[in-house]
């Protein structure tokens, strides 16, 4: 109903479903990346802080840091993959 009203106004040509899928992929993956970016920034920032405070903990923190990095980074890829699923299926 709403789409029928908007289409003549915007003079849309082409497949509207494809456009919607493309917007879903772009917006979804972009918003997901925002969250993951903030998370990765927090992880590395906190790690720098704690190493500056206790340099002898550096080796122990290293594996924890990579674990946290990979877990957070994966969130961006989840949204990307679900966007791709919406785009191609």
């Amino acid at each position: 109903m709403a789409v029928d009203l908007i289409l003549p106004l915007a003079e849309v040509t082409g497949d509207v479903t494809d456009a919607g899928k493309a917007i879903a992929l772009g917006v979804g993956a972009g918003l997901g990346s925002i969250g993951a970016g903030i998370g990765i920034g927090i992880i590395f920032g906190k790690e720098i802080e704690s190493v500056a405070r206790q340099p002898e903990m550096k080796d122990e923190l290293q594996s924890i840091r990579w674990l946290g990095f990979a877990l957070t980074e994966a969130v961006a890829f989840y949204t990307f993959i679900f966007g791709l699923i919406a785009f191609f299926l």
Partner: protein
Amino acid sequence: MSRKAKVFIALGIYFGITAILLVVAGSAGENEEFQPQNEFLLEPWIALSIGGIDFSITKAVLYLALASALTIGVMTFIARRMTREPNKVQMAVELAYDLTRDNITKGNIPDEKLARRYFPYLAGLFFFIWFSNMLGYLPLPTNTEHKVDIFGLELPTFAIYAATANISIPLVLALISTAVYHVEGIRAKGFFGYFKSWLPPGLESMNPFGKAAIFSIEAISHLVRPISLSVRLFANILAGHLLILFMAGGLAVLLGLAALGALTFPMAFAFFVFEIGLVATLQAFIFSTLTAIYIGGATAESH
């Protein structure tokens, strides 16, 4: 010449090539024929069906076999030729062995006997996923969709693909890991004891409804574990491959803009280095570390 001038000249060359290409080549219009997602379609090379189930030999099967053969072959070859003065390859393998034994296994499974029992599985997981990921960044002649004609011979073109860029292989590994930690938990604490241990400590005085609610949340978290474990590996590798594919020219061909290719190609190189240097090893490490954490958590005395 100051550093600032050098940076500006480099940027000028970078954008200059793009501008020249834009003027010379222009836009060829959108390319409808090129379907980049077909890179990830699995064409059956040898159709095979046993009892109604599809067992066809595809690209993924080849990569899986190659990764397994490399894992077994390389590791046994190096283990047979161990010397007192190690060369660089042996040192790298010893480093990886120490990482899997001390850091991944013993660091997350406190029980000595259990750690010894699961070290082969966790190390195997790590090395198999690592070889499979690294193999994915090696261009191999597997693209049978676009053939190239060399002296009358129809040869498949080079393409990158990884066994782990297909959801089925990470899913199988994740399901094995899930089954392993549930079975170990039940063996360590007994059937009801294990499910009781899902509840966090400090809830003794809570009423049964609250306990049931928390138990269902914990049950959901256990159900999500294999999904997140498999999708993490699969999505990382697939996204890396897609980025390399699109940046290295897929986008330029798809949109028919040669200038865009000049702009994105250095990014493809950067992503390639990032994937090889960090993501491939990190994902293998994460997968086996999380499996070890799950096994250690399922068998720990107090939750």
